[in-house]
Protein backbone atom coordinates (compact mmCIF):
# COMPACT_ATOMS: atom_id res chain seq x y z
CA UNK A 1 0.00 0.00 0.00
CA UNK A 2 2.85 2.37 0.89
CA UNK A 3 4.19 2.00 -2.67
CA UNK A 4 1.00 3.56 -3.97
CA UNK A 5 1.20 6.70 -1.84
CA UNK A 6 3.38 8.43 -4.42
CA UNK A 7 0.91 8.06 -7.28
CA UNK A 8 -1.13 10.91 -8.74
CA UNK A 9 -4.43 10.52 -10.55
CA UNK A 10 -6.19 13.51 -12.02
CA UNK A 11 -9.57 12.98 -13.63
CA UNK A 12 -11.44 15.62 -15.60
CA UNK A 13 -10.08 18.58 -13.64
CA UNK A 14 -11.59 21.96 -14.38
CA UNK A 15 -10.58 25.22 -12.74
CA UNK A 16 -11.15 28.91 -13.38
CA UNK A 17 -10.02 32.04 -11.53
CA UNK A 18 -12.76 34.06 -13.24
CA UNK A 19 -16.19 32.88 -14.22
CA UNK A 20 -16.44 31.60 -17.81
CA UNK A 21 -12.64 31.69 -18.28
CA UNK A 22 -11.44 28.21 -17.37
CA UNK A 23 -7.68 27.86 -16.95
CA UNK A 24 -7.84 24.07 -16.72
CA UNK A 25 -10.27 22.32 -19.08
CA UNK A 26 -10.78 18.71 -18.19
CA UNK A 27 -7.21 17.66 -17.40
CA UNK A 28 -6.55 13.92 -17.09
CA UNK A 29 -3.20 12.64 -15.86
CA UNK A 30 -1.84 9.53 -14.26
CA UNK A 31 1.60 9.55 -12.67
CA UNK A 32 3.20 6.43 -11.25
CA UNK A 33 5.01 6.06 -7.96
CA UNK A 34 8.68 7.23 -8.12
CA UNK A 35 8.20 8.45 -11.69
CA UNK A 36 9.87 11.66 -12.94
CA UNK A 37 7.09 13.45 -14.76
CA UNK A 38 7.38 16.72 -16.66
CA UNK A 39 4.55 19.05 -17.60
CA UNK A 40 5.60 21.49 -20.29
CA UNK A 41 3.66 24.21 -21.97
CA UNK A 42 3.80 27.84 -23.01
CA UNK A 43 3.13 30.77 -20.66
CA UNK A 44 -0.45 30.88 -19.50
CA UNK A 45 -1.13 27.24 -20.35
CA UNK A 46 -2.17 26.53 -16.73
CA UNK A 47 0.92 24.59 -15.61
CA UNK A 48 1.39 26.31 -12.24
CA UNK A 49 -2.35 26.26 -11.63
CA UNK A 50 -2.36 22.51 -12.20
CA UNK A 51 0.59 22.09 -9.84
CA UNK A 52 -1.19 23.98 -7.04
CA UNK A 53 -3.98 21.39 -7.19
CA UNK A 54 -1.60 18.61 -6.16
CA UNK A 55 -1.14 20.16 -2.76
CA UNK A 56 -4.70 21.33 -2.22
CA UNK A 57 -3.72 24.99 -2.54
CA UNK A 58 -6.33 25.21 -5.28
CA UNK A 59 -9.34 22.96 -5.59
CA UNK A 60 -11.24 22.81 -8.83
CA UNK A 61 -13.98 20.60 -10.23
CA UNK A 62 -13.00 17.02 -10.91
CA UNK A 63 -10.92 14.53 -9.02
CA UNK A 64 -7.32 14.76 -7.82
CA UNK A 65 -6.06 11.70 -6.01
CA UNK A 66 -2.73 11.46 -4.21
CA UNK A 67 -2.13 7.80 -3.52
CA UNK A 68 -5.32 6.48 -2.04
CA UNK A 69 -6.52 9.90 -0.88
CA UNK A 70 -8.66 12.33 -2.79
CA UNK A 71 -7.68 15.98 -2.33
CA UNK A 72 -10.57 17.42 -0.36
CA UNK A 73 -10.93 19.98 2.40
CA UNK A 74 -10.66 17.37 5.15
CA UNK A 75 -7.69 15.53 3.61
CA UNK A 76 -5.63 18.64 2.84
CA UNK A 77 -3.43 18.51 6.00
CA UNK A 78 -2.44 14.92 5.23
CA UNK A 79 -1.99 15.68 1.52
CA UNK A 80 0.35 18.57 2.36
CA UNK A 81 2.62 16.28 4.31
CA UNK A 82 2.67 13.89 1.34
CA UNK A 83 3.20 16.45 -1.43
CA UNK A 84 6.07 18.90 -1.12
CA UNK A 85 6.08 22.00 -3.31
CA UNK A 86 9.19 23.81 -4.49
CA UNK A 87 8.11 27.19 -5.76
CA UNK A 88 9.66 29.13 -8.62
CA UNK A 89 10.96 31.97 -6.49
CA UNK A 90 12.91 30.65 -3.49
CA UNK A 91 12.44 33.99 -1.73
CA UNK A 92 8.74 33.22 -1.45
CA UNK A 93 9.53 29.99 0.30
CA UNK A 94 12.17 31.18 2.75
CA UNK A 95 10.86 33.46 5.47
CA UNK A 96 12.66 32.47 8.63
CA UNK A 97 15.77 34.22 9.91
CA UNK A 98 18.08 31.23 9.47
CA UNK A 99 18.32 28.28 7.08
CA UNK A 100 17.90 25.88 10.00
CA UNK A 101 14.65 27.46 11.16
CA UNK A 102 13.31 27.55 7.61
CA UNK A 103 13.93 23.84 7.20
CA UNK A 104 12.41 23.16 10.62
CA UNK A 105 9.16 24.96 9.75
CA UNK A 106 7.55 22.08 7.82
CA UNK A 107 8.55 19.22 10.15
CA UNK A 108 7.44 21.26 13.20
CA UNK A 109 4.08 21.88 11.56
CA UNK A 110 3.82 18.12 11.11
CA UNK A 111 4.10 17.84 14.89
CA UNK A 112 7.48 16.08 14.96
CA UNK A 113 9.60 16.07 18.11
CA UNK A 114 12.61 18.47 18.30
CA UNK A 115 15.19 15.63 18.09
CA UNK A 116 13.55 14.24 14.95
CA UNK A 117 13.36 17.76 13.47
CA UNK A 118 17.09 18.29 14.12
CA UNK A 119 17.89 14.97 12.45
CA UNK A 120 15.81 15.85 9.41
CA UNK A 121 17.48 19.26 9.11
CA UNK A 122 20.88 17.59 9.15
CA UNK A 123 19.87 15.03 6.52
CA UNK A 124 18.18 17.57 4.24
CA UNK A 125 21.22 19.84 4.35
CA UNK A 126 23.50 16.91 3.61
CA UNK A 127 21.39 15.84 0.63
CA UNK A 128 21.54 19.38 -0.76
CA UNK A 129 25.26 19.64 0.00
CA UNK A 130 24.61 22.56 2.30
CA UNK A 131 26.34 21.33 5.45
CA UNK A 132 27.43 24.24 7.63
CA UNK A 133 24.65 26.53 6.36
CA UNK A 134 22.43 25.98 9.42
CA UNK A 135 22.93 29.37 11.04
CA UNK A 136 23.17 31.40 7.85
CA UNK A 137 20.47 33.87 6.90
CA UNK A 138 18.74 32.81 3.68
CA UNK A 139 18.87 36.30 2.21
CA UNK A 140 22.66 36.27 2.42
CA UNK A 141 22.92 33.24 0.11
CA UNK A 142 23.30 33.14 -3.67
CA UNK A 143 20.24 32.41 -5.82
CA UNK A 144 21.38 28.84 -6.51
CA UNK A 145 21.98 28.22 -2.81
CA UNK A 146 18.57 29.64 -1.95
CA UNK A 147 17.02 27.27 -4.50
CA UNK A 148 18.74 24.34 -2.80
CA UNK A 149 17.63 25.55 0.65
CA UNK A 150 14.06 25.80 -0.68
CA UNK A 151 14.32 22.18 -1.80
CA UNK A 152 15.82 21.21 1.56
CA UNK A 153 12.80 22.73 3.34
CA UNK A 154 10.63 20.32 1.37
CA UNK A 155 12.92 17.29 1.68
CA UNK A 156 12.88 17.62 5.47
CA UNK A 157 9.17 16.82 5.36
CA UNK A 158 10.02 13.56 3.54
CA UNK A 159 7.15 13.82 1.09
CA UNK A 160 6.21 10.99 -1.23
CA UNK A 161 5.76 13.49 -4.06
CA UNK A 162 7.84 16.58 -4.82
CA UNK A 163 6.38 19.14 -7.21
CA UNK A 164 8.65 21.75 -8.79
CA UNK A 165 7.42 24.96 -10.35
CA UNK A 166 9.89 26.20 -13.00
CA UNK A 167 12.94 24.81 -11.19
CA UNK A 168 15.42 25.71 -13.95
CA UNK A 169 14.58 29.38 -14.32
CA UNK A 170 17.37 31.85 -13.51
CA UNK A 171 19.95 29.13 -12.94
CA UNK A 172 23.37 29.05 -14.56
CA UNK A 173 24.22 25.92 -16.61
CA UNK A 174 26.30 24.29 -13.88
CA UNK A 175 23.51 24.80 -11.37
CA UNK A 176 21.02 23.30 -13.85
CA UNK A 177 23.27 20.26 -14.15
CA UNK A 178 23.53 19.99 -10.37
CA UNK A 179 19.77 20.27 -10.00
CA UNK A 180 19.18 17.61 -12.68
CA UNK A 181 21.44 15.27 -10.76
CA UNK A 182 19.61 16.04 -7.49
CA UNK A 183 16.19 15.50 -9.10
CA UNK A 184 17.24 12.13 -10.50
CA UNK A 185 18.36 11.00 -7.04
CA UNK A 186 15.27 12.18 -5.11
CA UNK A 187 13.56 9.36 -3.22
CA UNK A 188 10.07 10.43 -4.31
CA UNK A 189 7.75 10.88 -7.24
CA UNK A 190 8.79 14.08 -8.99
CA UNK A 191 6.53 16.41 -10.97
CA UNK A 192 8.14 19.31 -12.80
CA UNK A 193 6.34 22.09 -14.60
CA UNK A 194 8.52 24.12 -16.88
CA UNK A 195 8.74 25.96 -20.17
CA UNK A 196 12.28 24.68 -20.68
CA UNK A 197 12.04 21.43 -22.60
CA UNK A 198 15.68 20.34 -22.65
CA UNK A 199 16.29 20.01 -18.89
CA UNK A 200 12.82 18.48 -18.44
CA UNK A 201 13.53 15.87 -21.09
CA UNK A 202 16.92 15.24 -19.51
CA UNK A 203 15.51 14.30 -16.13
CA UNK A 204 11.96 13.05 -16.73
CA UNK A 205 10.75 9.62 -17.74
CA UNK A 206 7.48 10.96 -19.10
CA UNK A 207 6.25 14.34 -20.28
CA UNK A 208 2.83 15.86 -20.81
CA UNK A 209 2.26 18.93 -22.97
CA UNK A 210 -0.30 21.39 -21.69
CA UNK A 211 -1.86 23.99 -23.94
CA UNK A 212 -4.71 26.32 -23.03
CA UNK A 213 -5.64 24.19 -20.05
CA UNK A 214 -5.76 20.89 -21.94
CA UNK A 215 -3.31 18.02 -22.17
CA UNK A 216 -2.25 17.82 -25.81
CA UNK A 217 -0.11 14.72 -25.50
CA UNK A 218 1.57 12.48 -22.95
CA UNK A 219 4.40 10.07 -23.52
CA UNK A 220 8.01 9.11 -22.92
CA UNK A 221 10.01 12.35 -22.76
CA UNK A 222 12.29 11.73 -25.79
CA UNK A 223 9.36 10.71 -27.97
CA UNK A 224 7.40 13.84 -27.10
CA UNK A 225 10.48 16.00 -27.70
CA UNK A 226 10.89 14.48 -31.18
CA UNK A 227 7.42 15.61 -32.27
CA UNK A 228 8.54 18.98 -33.56
CA UNK A 229 5.32 19.74 -35.35
CA UNK A 230 3.27 19.34 -32.20
CA UNK A 231 5.78 21.34 -30.12
CA UNK A 232 5.76 24.15 -32.67
CA UNK A 233 1.97 24.27 -32.53
CA UNK A 234 2.27 24.67 -28.74
CA UNK A 235 4.88 27.46 -29.02
CA UNK A 236 7.50 25.11 -27.61
CA UNK A 237 9.75 24.91 -30.63
CA UNK A 238 13.38 24.47 -29.63
CA UNK A 239 14.95 24.01 -33.07
CA UNK A 240 17.09 27.10 -32.50
CA UNK A 241 19.02 25.19 -29.81
CA UNK A 242 19.22 22.19 -32.10
CA UNK A 243 20.81 24.20 -34.90
CA UNK A 244 23.27 25.86 -32.48
CA UNK A 245 24.26 22.46 -31.11
CA UNK A 246 24.69 21.06 -34.62
CA UNK A 247 27.00 23.93 -35.54
CA UNK A 248 28.93 23.56 -32.31
CA UNK A 249 29.50 19.84 -32.49
CA UNK A 250 29.60 19.15 -36.25
Amino acid sequence: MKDQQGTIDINNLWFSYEKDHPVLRGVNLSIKNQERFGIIGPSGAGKSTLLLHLNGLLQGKGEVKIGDREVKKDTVPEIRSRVGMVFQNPDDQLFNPTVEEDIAFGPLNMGLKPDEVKLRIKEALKEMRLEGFEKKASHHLSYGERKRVALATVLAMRPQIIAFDEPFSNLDPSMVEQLLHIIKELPATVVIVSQEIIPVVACCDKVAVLKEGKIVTTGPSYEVAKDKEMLRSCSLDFSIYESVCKKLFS
Partner: protein
Amino acid sequence: MKHDYLDKYSRLDSFVHRVDPRAKLICFFLAVAAVVSEPRGDITGFPFYYLLIFMLLAASRIPVVFVLKRCLIASPFIVMAAGVLPLSYVLSPSTSSLSPDVMLFHSLSILLKAYAAVILLTLLASTEKFHCLLNGLQKLKFPPILGIMSALMYRYIFILNDEMLRTARARKSRTPGKSRISRFRIYGNQAALIFLRAKKRAQDVYNAMLSRGFKGDFPEYNGLRWRIQDGLFSLVFLALYTGVRFGL
Protein backbone atom coordinates in the same frame (compact mmCIF):
# COMPACT_ATOMS: atom_id res chain seq x y z
CA MET B 1 17.64 42.97 -1.39
CA LYS B 2 18.15 44.50 2.02
CA HIS B 3 16.32 42.35 4.51
CA ASP B 4 17.32 43.32 8.02
CA TYR B 5 16.55 46.97 8.32
CA LEU B 6 13.98 46.52 11.06
CA ASP B 7 16.00 44.52 13.57
CA LYS B 8 19.31 45.52 12.05
CA TYR B 9 21.47 45.21 15.16
CA SER B 10 19.74 42.19 16.67
CA ARG B 11 22.65 39.96 15.66
CA LEU B 12 25.20 41.85 17.77
CA ASP B 13 26.48 40.12 20.85
CA SER B 14 26.17 41.96 24.16
CA PHE B 15 24.80 41.14 27.58
CA VAL B 16 21.59 43.02 26.69
CA HIS B 17 21.25 40.90 23.53
CA ARG B 18 21.68 37.74 25.57
CA VAL B 19 18.86 38.55 28.01
CA ASP B 20 15.73 36.41 27.52
CA PRO B 21 13.18 38.20 25.28
CA ARG B 22 10.49 37.78 27.95
CA ALA B 23 12.64 39.64 30.50
CA LYS B 24 13.32 42.39 27.98
CA LEU B 25 9.66 42.71 27.03
CA ILE B 26 8.55 43.00 30.67
CA CYS B 27 11.33 45.42 31.60
CA PHE B 28 11.06 47.67 28.58
CA PHE B 29 7.29 47.92 28.65
CA LEU B 30 7.27 48.64 32.39
CA ALA B 31 10.03 51.20 31.87
CA VAL B 32 7.94 52.91 29.19
CA ALA B 33 4.96 52.83 31.57
CA ALA B 34 7.08 54.36 34.37
CA VAL B 35 8.34 57.15 32.12
CA VAL B 36 4.97 57.90 30.56
CA SER B 37 3.16 57.95 33.90
CA GLU B 38 5.43 60.68 35.32
CA PRO B 39 3.27 63.62 36.44
CA ARG B 40 2.83 66.23 33.75
CA GLY B 41 5.40 68.99 33.97
CA ASP B 42 7.65 67.12 36.42
CA ILE B 43 10.98 66.52 34.74
CA THR B 44 13.15 65.86 37.78
CA GLY B 45 13.29 62.08 37.20
CA PHE B 46 14.29 62.29 33.54
CA PRO B 47 18.04 62.77 33.98
CA PHE B 48 18.06 59.40 35.81
CA TYR B 49 15.83 57.72 33.24
CA TYR B 50 18.04 58.93 30.40
CA LEU B 51 21.19 57.95 32.29
CA LEU B 52 19.84 54.40 32.63
CA ILE B 53 18.76 54.33 29.00
CA PHE B 54 22.15 55.49 27.73
CA MET B 55 23.95 53.04 30.00
CA LEU B 56 21.88 50.26 28.40
CA LEU B 57 22.55 51.68 24.98
CA ALA B 58 26.29 51.70 25.60
CA ALA B 59 26.16 48.15 26.96
CA SER B 60 24.20 46.94 23.93
CA ARG B 61 26.79 48.40 21.49
CA ILE B 62 24.05 49.79 19.26
CA PRO B 63 25.36 52.89 17.46
CA VAL B 64 23.96 56.11 18.94
CA VAL B 65 23.57 57.51 15.41
CA PHE B 66 21.16 54.69 14.56
CA VAL B 67 19.04 55.47 17.64
CA LEU B 68 19.10 59.19 16.85
CA LYS B 69 17.91 58.45 13.31
CA ARG B 70 14.99 56.50 14.74
CA CYS B 71 14.21 59.47 16.99
CA LEU B 72 14.36 61.73 13.98
CA ILE B 73 11.70 59.65 12.21
CA ALA B 74 9.38 60.04 15.20
CA SER B 75 10.26 63.72 15.69
CA PRO B 76 7.55 65.34 13.54
CA PHE B 77 4.84 63.64 15.61
CA ILE B 78 6.53 64.27 18.96
CA VAL B 79 7.33 67.90 18.24
CA MET B 80 3.83 68.48 16.94
CA ALA B 81 2.29 66.98 20.10
CA ALA B 82 4.55 69.03 22.36
CA GLY B 83 4.01 72.19 20.30
CA VAL B 84 0.24 71.91 20.14
CA LEU B 85 -0.12 71.46 23.92
CA PRO B 86 0.50 75.13 24.94
CA LEU B 87 -1.90 76.21 22.19
CA SER B 88 -4.61 73.94 23.55
CA TYR B 89 -3.97 75.36 27.05
CA VAL B 90 -4.38 78.91 25.76
CA LEU B 91 -7.59 78.09 23.94
CA SER B 92 -9.19 76.21 26.83
CA PRO B 93 -10.84 78.49 29.48
CA SER B 94 -9.88 76.14 32.34
CA THR B 95 -6.14 76.20 31.55
CA SER B 96 -5.63 79.55 29.86
CA SER B 97 -4.52 81.13 33.15
CA LEU B 98 -1.48 78.82 33.48
CA SER B 99 1.85 80.61 33.37
CA PRO B 100 4.07 80.21 30.27
CA ASP B 101 6.70 78.47 32.45
CA VAL B 102 4.25 75.75 33.43
CA MET B 103 3.17 75.30 29.83
CA LEU B 104 6.80 75.08 28.77
CA PHE B 105 7.52 72.38 31.36
CA HIS B 106 4.44 70.45 30.30
CA SER B 107 5.62 70.52 26.67
CA LEU B 108 9.13 69.59 27.70
CA SER B 109 7.88 66.61 29.72
CA ILE B 110 5.95 65.38 26.66
CA LEU B 111 9.12 65.63 24.57
CA LEU B 112 11.19 63.80 27.16
CA LYS B 113 8.60 61.06 27.71
CA ALA B 114 8.12 60.44 23.98
CA TYR B 115 11.83 60.33 23.14
CA ALA B 116 12.53 58.03 26.12
CA ALA B 117 9.79 55.67 24.90
CA VAL B 118 11.12 55.74 21.32
CA ILE B 119 14.67 55.00 22.48
CA LEU B 120 13.51 52.20 24.78
CA LEU B 121 11.48 50.56 22.01
CA THR B 122 14.34 50.98 19.53
CA LEU B 123 16.59 49.28 22.06
CA LEU B 124 14.10 46.47 22.49
CA ALA B 125 13.72 45.92 18.72
CA SER B 126 17.48 46.15 18.13
CA THR B 127 18.62 43.81 20.86
CA GLU B 128 16.35 40.91 19.94
CA LYS B 129 15.44 39.15 16.73
CA PHE B 130 11.88 39.88 15.73
CA HIS B 131 10.72 36.28 15.79
CA CYS B 132 12.21 35.83 19.30
CA LEU B 133 10.23 38.85 20.51
CA LEU B 134 7.10 37.27 19.07
CA ASN B 135 8.02 34.03 20.74
CA GLY B 136 8.44 35.94 24.02
CA LEU B 137 5.05 37.61 23.59
CA GLN B 138 3.49 34.22 22.95
CA LYS B 139 5.08 32.84 26.14
CA LEU B 140 3.80 35.85 28.07
CA LYS B 141 0.31 34.82 26.98
CA PHE B 142 -0.34 37.73 24.64
CA PRO B 143 -3.28 36.97 22.28
CA PRO B 144 -1.86 34.63 19.58
CA ILE B 145 -3.63 36.54 16.82
CA LEU B 146 -1.45 39.59 17.61
CA GLY B 147 1.67 37.48 17.22
CA ILE B 148 0.53 35.97 13.92
CA MET B 149 -0.49 39.34 12.54
CA SER B 150 2.84 40.87 13.53
CA ALA B 151 4.77 37.95 12.04
CA LEU B 152 2.91 38.15 8.74
CA MET B 153 3.24 41.92 8.66
CA TYR B 154 6.97 41.61 9.27
CA ARG B 155 7.23 39.13 6.38
CA TYR B 156 5.13 41.25 4.02
CA ILE B 157 7.02 44.45 4.76
CA PHE B 158 10.01 42.89 3.00
CA ILE B 159 7.87 41.98 0.02
CA LEU B 160 6.62 45.55 -0.25
CA ASN B 161 10.18 46.77 0.11
CA ASP B 162 11.42 44.34 -2.56
CA GLU B 163 8.74 45.40 -4.99
CA MET B 164 9.36 49.07 -4.23
CA LEU B 165 13.07 48.66 -5.01
CA ARG B 166 12.32 46.77 -8.22
CA THR B 167 9.82 49.29 -9.56
CA ALA B 168 12.02 52.22 -8.51
CA ARG B 169 14.93 50.65 -10.39
CA ALA B 170 12.75 50.16 -13.48
CA ARG B 171 11.51 53.75 -13.29
CA LYS B 172 14.99 55.21 -12.83
CA SER B 173 16.40 53.18 -15.72
CA ARG B 174 13.86 54.73 -18.06
CA THR B 175 13.84 58.29 -16.75
CA PRO B 176 17.33 59.59 -17.43
CA GLY B 177 17.79 63.16 -16.25
CA LYS B 178 14.77 65.16 -15.32
CA SER B 179 11.48 63.61 -16.22
CA ARG B 180 9.22 65.75 -18.37
CA ILE B 181 6.09 63.95 -17.41
CA SER B 182 4.53 64.96 -14.14
CA ARG B 183 6.47 63.13 -11.45
CA PHE B 184 3.41 62.74 -9.28
CA ARG B 185 1.69 60.74 -12.00
CA ILE B 186 4.67 58.42 -12.26
CA TYR B 187 4.84 57.99 -8.49
CA GLY B 188 1.12 57.29 -8.42
CA ASN B 189 1.43 54.59 -11.09
CA GLN B 190 4.44 53.14 -9.30
CA ALA B 191 2.58 52.96 -5.98
CA ALA B 192 -0.36 51.18 -7.63
CA LEU B 193 1.98 48.72 -9.32
CA ILE B 194 3.83 48.04 -6.07
CA PHE B 195 0.61 47.12 -4.31
CA LEU B 196 -0.60 44.90 -7.15
CA ARG B 197 2.70 43.05 -7.38
CA ALA B 198 3.07 42.82 -3.62
CA LYS B 199 -0.42 41.33 -3.40
CA LYS B 200 0.53 38.64 -5.89
CA ARG B 201 3.79 37.87 -4.12
CA ALA B 202 2.13 37.91 -0.71
CA GLN B 203 -0.25 35.25 -2.03
CA ASP B 204 2.74 33.20 -3.29
CA VAL B 205 4.41 33.45 0.11
CA TYR B 206 1.22 32.43 1.85
CA ASN B 207 0.83 29.47 -0.53
CA ALA B 208 4.40 28.42 0.24
CA MET B 209 3.61 28.56 3.95
CA LEU B 210 0.37 26.61 3.53
CA SER B 211 2.13 23.96 1.46
CA ARG B 212 4.43 23.31 4.42
CA GLY B 213 1.56 22.79 6.80
CA PHE B 214 1.09 26.35 8.17
CA LYS B 215 -2.04 26.26 10.32
CA GLY B 216 -2.08 29.78 11.66
CA ASP B 217 0.67 29.68 14.23
CA PHE B 218 4.43 29.67 14.00
CA PRO B 219 5.90 26.58 15.63
CA GLU B 220 8.67 27.16 18.11
CA TYR B 221 12.05 25.77 17.12
CA ASN B 222 14.57 27.03 19.65
CA GLY B 223 12.69 27.11 22.95
CA LEU B 224 13.34 30.00 25.32
CA ARG B 225 15.23 29.34 28.54
CA TRP B 226 14.91 31.59 31.57
CA ARG B 227 18.28 31.81 33.35
CA ILE B 228 19.35 33.34 36.65
CA GLN B 229 20.95 36.24 34.75
CA ASP B 230 17.58 37.08 33.18
CA GLY B 231 15.96 37.22 36.60
CA LEU B 232 18.76 39.41 37.95
CA PHE B 233 18.58 41.76 34.97
CA SER B 234 14.82 42.14 35.42
CA LEU B 235 15.11 42.75 39.15
CA VAL B 236 17.82 45.41 38.88
CA PHE B 237 16.20 47.10 35.89
CA LEU B 238 12.76 47.25 37.45
CA ALA B 239 14.12 48.30 40.85
CA LEU B 240 15.95 51.22 39.28
CA TYR B 241 13.00 52.39 37.23
CA THR B 242 10.41 52.05 39.99
CA GLY B 243 12.90 53.70 42.35
CA VAL B 244 13.17 56.75 40.11
CA ARG B 245 9.45 56.76 39.37
CA PHE B 246 8.37 56.74 43.00
CA GLY B 247 11.28 58.88 44.19
CA LEU B 248 12.76 56.19 46.47
